[in-house]
Structures are given as C-alpha cells and as structure tokens.
C-alpha cells in the first residue's frame, strides 16, 4: 500500500488538558498528540470544533509530552473555543507547513499581537541552540502583550534580551514595534530576523530587512481550507501558505510584494484589502 497521504492529515480527537488565560482575549489550550510533539517551530494545525468550524492555529508550545495553541477570540470559532473547558475534546490534523529554518548567529525576533505565540517554539529552539536572541514584542496595549513572561524566562540562558513597544505607551516604548526594530537595526547587525504578526507590520519588517540587508523569515496567515496544498484558498502569488509556508523568506516575499501586505483572498477568491 502506498503511504498515500501524510499521516499527519488524519483527524485526531484530543482532550484539552489545560487552559491558560494569556491576555483578556487570548487563551492557551494544552493537549497531547504524538505528531504535534514532533512538529517544527512555526508549523500549524487545523483545529476542528464540531458543528462550528475548522480553523488554522500555530502551535504555541511543542514538547514531548504536551503541545498547545494560543487562541485569540475574534469570531465564532475562536469564541466557541474559548468556551471549552478542561476535559473537553477538539479535533486536530497536522502539523502542516514548513516551519522556521534555524540559521546561525545573532537573531532578532519580532512578534506583534497574537503572532507572538507562534514564535514561542522558535525561541525555545534558538535558546536551546545557544543563539543570541533579541526579542521585540509589540501590542496595542499592555494587557495584550502575549507570552512576555515566558519569553523573559527563556532569554537569560543565552544572555538574550527582550524589548517592548505598545501603541498606547502603557508598557515599554510608545509606538509601533517596527520603529523599535528599526532602532535596533540602526545600531547593530543581525544575522536573521524572524517575525510573526499583523501583515502590515511584517510588510514593514520586509522593507527593513531589505534596507539593512538582513535575511528575514516571516510567518504568514491566509484563509485556509485543505491545509495540504490543493484547494488554492491560501495562495499568495504563486505560493501556497499552507504548504510552501507559512514561513517565507524575505527573498520569496519580495517576489509577491504587490500582494504581501496589500491584499488577501476571501473564501470566494476575491481580493480583499488588508
């Protein structure tokens, strides 16, 4: 028998083992799944809430005994998820996508909003491999700063540092995180920039990476259906975010610049301004 489709795409039903309120709008859900435990940082799963929806979620925790997703309440599916209790069940398939490639040297990690949670397993790996990490964390307001404590706890191992910007100035510097990133890039050289967050923010990071000639890896979001690269829902230019991504290099993104940061496709394929 041909090992026909990836085993990963098979639906599994997992129990919610733990729930953490991260911010007023973000909750983390812990569950056990062998395949997710072997995921690479940056990979995502499809989460099925029976009778409601199935939505893509990055793995925010990857460890041999438990994995997690961190979910921002934005609509029906995520609202329903937020109502789930410990002991309830969800369906998952995955992990999907390419994940981050771990480079070498001194790296900058730029997280905006919930996007930060997708960077957590990456930071774990970077720290494990003794990279010097500068973590820049941005949010609208202090309350919405995700995973700050966890990042702070990880970084000392590599003499890493964390810096924060909030748009209302309630924590760290006032302003957008990309301004902070620009400041750092002006002063120091980095071997790699990793970023995940709102697409306009990542677009600005792309421009910065080009200006400072620093390689970039950005984790994108698009609407998804199949997650296995065939339905065409998640495309950006010639790329499929579910399969060729969700992590793209600056080089790749510069080829789809008229689309990246500018518009995405709706479920019916129409272009929608970002």
């Amino acid at each position, binding site marked *: *028998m*041909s090992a*026909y*489709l*990836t085993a990963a*795409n*098979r*639906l599994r*039903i997992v129990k919610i083992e733990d729930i953490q309120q991260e911010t007023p709008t973000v909750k983390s859900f812990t569950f056990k799944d062998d395949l997710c435990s072997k995921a690479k940082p940056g990979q995502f799963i*499809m989460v*099925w809430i*029976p*009778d409601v*929806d*199935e*939505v893509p979620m990055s793995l925010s925790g990857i460890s041999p005994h438990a994995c997690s997703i961190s979910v921002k309440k934005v609509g029906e599916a995520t609202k329903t998820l937020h109502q789930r209790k410990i002991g309830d*069940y969800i*369906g998952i*398939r995955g992990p999907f996508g390419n994940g981050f490639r771990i480079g070498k040297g001194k790296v900058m990690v730029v997280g905006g909003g919930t996007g930060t949670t997708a960077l957590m397993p990456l930071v774990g790996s970077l720290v494990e491999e003794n990279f010097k990490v500068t973590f820049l964390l941005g949010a609208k307001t202090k309350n919405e700063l995700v995973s700050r404590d966890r990042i702070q706890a990880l970084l000392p191992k590599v003499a890493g540092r964390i810096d924060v910007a909030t748009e209302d100035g309630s924590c760290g510097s006032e302003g957008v995180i990309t301004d902070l990133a620009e400041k750092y890039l002006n002063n120091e050289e980095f071997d790699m920039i990793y970023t995940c967050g709102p697409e306009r923010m990542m677009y600005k990071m792309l421009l910065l990476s080009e200006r400072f000639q620093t390689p970039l890896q950005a984790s994108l979001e698009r609407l*998804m*259906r*199949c*997650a*296995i*690269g*065939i*339905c*065409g*829902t998640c*495309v950006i*230019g*010639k790329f*499929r975010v579910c*399969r060729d991504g969700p992590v793209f290099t600056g080089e790749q993104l510069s080829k789809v610049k008229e689309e990246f940061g500018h518009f995405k*496709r*709706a*479920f*019916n*394929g*129409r272009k929608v301004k970002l």
Partner: protein
Amino acid sequence: MRNRLAIEIAELKLTNPTMLAAGILGMTGASLREASVWGAGAVVTKSVGLKPREGYSNPTVAQVDCGLLNAIGLPNPGVSEFSEEIKEVKQSETPIPLIVSIYGFSTSEFVKVAKVAAEAGADALELNVSCPHVRDTGAEIGQNPSLVAEVVEEVKKNVLQPVFVKLTPNVADIVGVAKAAVEAGADALVAVNTVRAMAIDVETTRPILSNRIGGLSGPAIKPIAIRCVYEIYREVDVPIVGCGGVTSWRDAVEFMLAGASAVQIGTAISAKGMGVFKSVTRGISSYLKRKGFRSIEEIVGLSHRS
C-alpha cells in the same frame, strides 16, 4: 525529434498529457501559471459560475483511507471577476492550454458564464455537470442525459472554443450520459468527478465535513474511474481525459490503456507535491520508450485490443 508525449485533444495542443484538475489550486492566475511551470501540459481552473459563491464553511476537506473527501461548495468570485485571472494566465510568456471549468444553475447560466470565460481567453471550456455536493447544479444535471445534452448544445451554439464535459461516476449508466454529451456536440469528455461519499468521526459522533456529504477522490476511486473510461471508450469517438487517483505514471498509463488521451491530476498533489506532473510525465515517457511505442496515441485504448 518528435515529442513522444505530445497529444492533441479537441484542437488543444499539449506538450504532455498531464493536466491540473478542476478545483485544484485553480483559484488564481498565479497558481495556474505555477502548475504550468511545474510541468502540467494544460491547466483547468476552479469551477466558476455567474455569481460569487462563498462555498461551505470548514471542515471542507477530510482524509479517509486512500483518499480525500471534499465538499468545498464551489467557492468562486463569479466569472466576471475571474476573467482577470484568466487573462493573467494567457499573458504568460509560455502559455499552455487553459481550460476554464464552469457551472450554472440553469442552461442559460451555463451559456452566460461560457461566453464571459471564452471572451476572457479560455482555450476551452469544461462543463462541470458533476459536482456531487452542490444542489441543483453539478450531478443533478450530470445524472440526466437530456439535461446534459441541452446544456452542451446551448453552450456549443454560443462559443467557438472546444467544450469538454466532465462526467459524474454517480450514475447507473455513465455511457448513456457520455453518449448524450457527445451527440449534443461535446468535443471531449473528462471522466470522472468525485464519488459521493462521507465520513463520520466516531469519537464525537459527528459527520466531519460541514456539508456532511462530499466527494471522494484519490487512489480509492481510481479503479472506478478506470472502469468509466473503459466503458465510455467503447462507445464514443471523442477524446477522453481520465481523472481520479492518478498518482504515478503507472496510473496514467493505466488510464491511457483504458482509453484516455490525457489525465488530470488533483489529490496526488497533496502527497507528491507539484513535482507530480514531471514525475508522471517522465514515467510515461520511459514506459513508451521501453515498450517501443512512438507516441501516446499508440497506447490509448490498447487494453481493448487483444
């Protein structure tokens, strides 16, 4: 040197007999072009209709043993907006045949969509009268030979481009429908669309797809599709494009021996990636060489002769 793999189907000249199947990555011009870059001999778009459609909510795809279930629900931006994507494909430096798949909730809708698509630059039209999970278009038409004939006839009257008809296996007698399509003027047939099927999760006791019922594709349906092509080949004279479970060159050759002049590939892209067009094409080529055949035509329908 002559290309062993070249084949002409209803006036379309393909440099190799693999096509991207309808609804697979065919939502945008860029991704259709990408399939051609990866080696598809022709590409078929996502099925488009007159008006925009959202499609069903997720889950729209579910994996089962040896296949995939899907009930996407024919999402598309409507043919007018989609014309931009069609034009983008035709602007490519290395244009390959572009087949626009269309659906309609009535014969007149089919005609309207066909005209817009043809106008925008479609090299051929593929009539999707076989979607197993959207009511009142698709299989409801494709299961009824006289409705199929009506749609084909009207579309043919209104466009100059060749018309392909994509058949559903969810019928008692696929040959009857195939004949009706050909008598009404179809230039080629595509066999087959997905098989009506479903999956239920035992832990939650819920049907997995939001639409509950969907279409089965992939290796599971290959023997069914092969049978359909074999049966149709005996009875009609237009080219047949095989579709359903093509994953390796062996599958493609099997379809050709059954009577197909070319194959469409969908689900296999999930397992093999976009490289599947090249690997299938290369495999067919070595097969032809090894067996001493000079062209694909020589093996089309060969299993019928003894």
